[in-house]
């Protein structure tokens, strides 16, 4: 594997995909490279700073659609340009959730496919106020891949930009700044993404701008993703008409309830594919069927659109 030193002192190397980052020992703070050799001509330049409970990572891809995914980190990505999708992580205790940021971009370098700004380990740092908010509780997880409101997204994007700047300036070498930044990132994530710990700060003041019907519908979908659901059933669970729900969904999620359901199922199928025992009895078709995808060809097409590779590739990886 060849290392090349980037002109800005950040090491770069040719790589085709990102490998999960092994947790490093507590109190260590060092640039750490991830990535492994892969498709020719694809460059992933990553600088990852990892300490205790938090790692800060800046990754630039010169490939418009890199494979994303890690299982033990909460990853927050901001797409600078191009299209990029992060995959949902495990949802049980100890697993991580990954956050989707389809388009928060301010349109920068067109050669840069995406920039994963940050990954934060699922265990939130002590004294971050996170325990108070319930984040340390068993079964803590994030409920949504999108920030709870446009204001929250703006705040989060600004926070990631600021932290990115600190990383680039090397400021997080300072223990005080590292501690303060860790707390800030944890606070931003917890207040921006709906989760089982913080429902909404100062409940009643509109932390979650989505109508109650949309919230009820997404909760219902997440809970019953494994069962066959119709648009009428979702609407009934949400307590509104089908048309009204579709309209509200478009407004707040940019898609129909059915598309939202499909995405939830795709995410679960993806998780099963990642974790599947290749030597066992599992097959792509069986996993797809488990999540309601009876037609293998259509599943493969949707999957490829969401994850940039055919399901077989994930299964065999």
């Amino acid at each position: 594997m060849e290392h090349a030193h980037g002109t800005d002192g950040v090491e770069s190397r040719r790589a085709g995909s990102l490998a999960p980052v092994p947790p490093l020992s507590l109190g260590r703070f060092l640039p750490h490279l991830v990535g492994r050799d892969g498709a020719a001509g694809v460059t992933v330049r990553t600088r990852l700073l990892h300490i205790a409970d938090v790692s800060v990572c800046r990754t630039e891809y010169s490939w418009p659609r890199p494979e994303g995914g890690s299982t033990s980190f909460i990853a927050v990505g901001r797409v600078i340009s191009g299209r990029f999708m992060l995959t949902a992580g495990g949802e049980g205790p100890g697993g991580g959730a990954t956050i989707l940021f389809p388009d928060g971009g301010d349109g920068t370098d067109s050669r840069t496919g995406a920039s994963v700004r940050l990954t934060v380990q699922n265990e939130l740092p002590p004294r971050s106020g996170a325990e108070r908010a319930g984040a340390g509780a068993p079964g803590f997880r994030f409920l949504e891949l999108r920030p709870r409101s446009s204001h929250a997204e703006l705040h989060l994007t600004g926070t990631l930009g600021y932290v990115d700047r600190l990383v680039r300036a090397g400021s997080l070498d300072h223990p005080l700044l590292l501690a303060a930044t860790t707390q800030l990132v944890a606070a931003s994530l917890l207040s921006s993404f709906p989760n089982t710990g913080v429902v909404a700060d100062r409940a009643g003041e509109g932390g979650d701008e989505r109508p109650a019907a949309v919230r009820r519908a997404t909760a219902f979908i997440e809970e019953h993703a494994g069962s066959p659901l119709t648009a009428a059933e979702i609407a009934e669970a949400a307590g509104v008409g089908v048309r009204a729900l579709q309209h509200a969904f478009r407004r707040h999620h940019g898609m129909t309830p059915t598309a939202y359901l499909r995405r939830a199922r795709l995410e679960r199928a993806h998780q099963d594919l990642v974790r599947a025992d290749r030597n066992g009895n599992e097959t792509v078709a069986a996993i797809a069927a488990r999540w309601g995808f009876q037609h293998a060809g259509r599943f493969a097409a949707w999957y490829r659109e969401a994850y940039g590779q055919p399901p077989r590739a994930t299964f065999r990886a």
Partner: protein
Amino acid sequence: MTVSVRPGAAVDGPLRVTTARFSTRDPDLGDAYLSETFRCASERISLEDGYRLRAARTALGAVSVGRLQLVAHERRRLAPGEAVSVAHLLGGRYRVAAGGAELDVRPGEVVLDPGGGCQLEWEDVELDAVVLPTRLVADTALESVDLDPRRFRFTGQRPVSRAALEHWVAALRYVETYVLANPAARRSELVLGATLRLLASAALVVFPSTASGASPQLPEPATPIVARRAAAFIEEHAARPITLSEIAATARVTPRALQYAFRRTFDTTPTGYHRRVRLERAHRELQLAAPEDGETVTTIAARWGFANPGRFAALYRRTYGTSPSTTLRG
């Protein structure tokens, strides 16, 4: 018209954010406001010419982040208090004398008042000031340094390095735009708590104190010289149209090299940087504008080079999450 901030209010307890503006031509009312803001008794020594004070202050628990615009030439004495303040000077003349040392602060620089009392001379200044309870700063220092809290104090008024100055300015810019102006962040106690600590940590890293010895310095140089020179030029001439080649000439590089340096340093183009600075200045004036001035969003936007009010409003909303008229109305 004045704002209620309890001097030395407890750091703990529910965090609330309140923003209020203040405007007066009466020097006595101005005095009362300044004493309240800087949490210390303050007494005027001399005043020349007219007097006009415009200010906006956001209280975040016991911390306040304020913007001041003073049209006057005055000397004043500040008594020792229980808070430290950090001023980022944007314009005007500012001279401070404390403990036998005299400092001339220039626009773009930041200066710390450690709360031990000082003498101040200022003329037509524009500045952003952060006031932090000494206790909050000392408590934050103690989290990483073993120190008797009673022995904590700042030992200098200037940032320890160029990188330190840049760190302060970036932290303040972040807090103003993405926390204090952001409706979602303002509601989140978690974020507000983290912000208090962020500001206290920044003060500790930026200015020398009895706690500094044990910690590393911020790495230098934070910003490449080309980008730094160009950015300073843009900040200074933000109000007028500037061309890319003009900025490049100041930085003594080709426009292409300049664009490259900006992309690498600020993640934007020189033009994008200029737009951001103009937007920040417009935001600042919208916060400071007094009703009796008869200023409108359109006149303020135009002053900072945004000729199209609709486009200005859209850009403003994308950045601050609210409309400029909401900010203007306070």
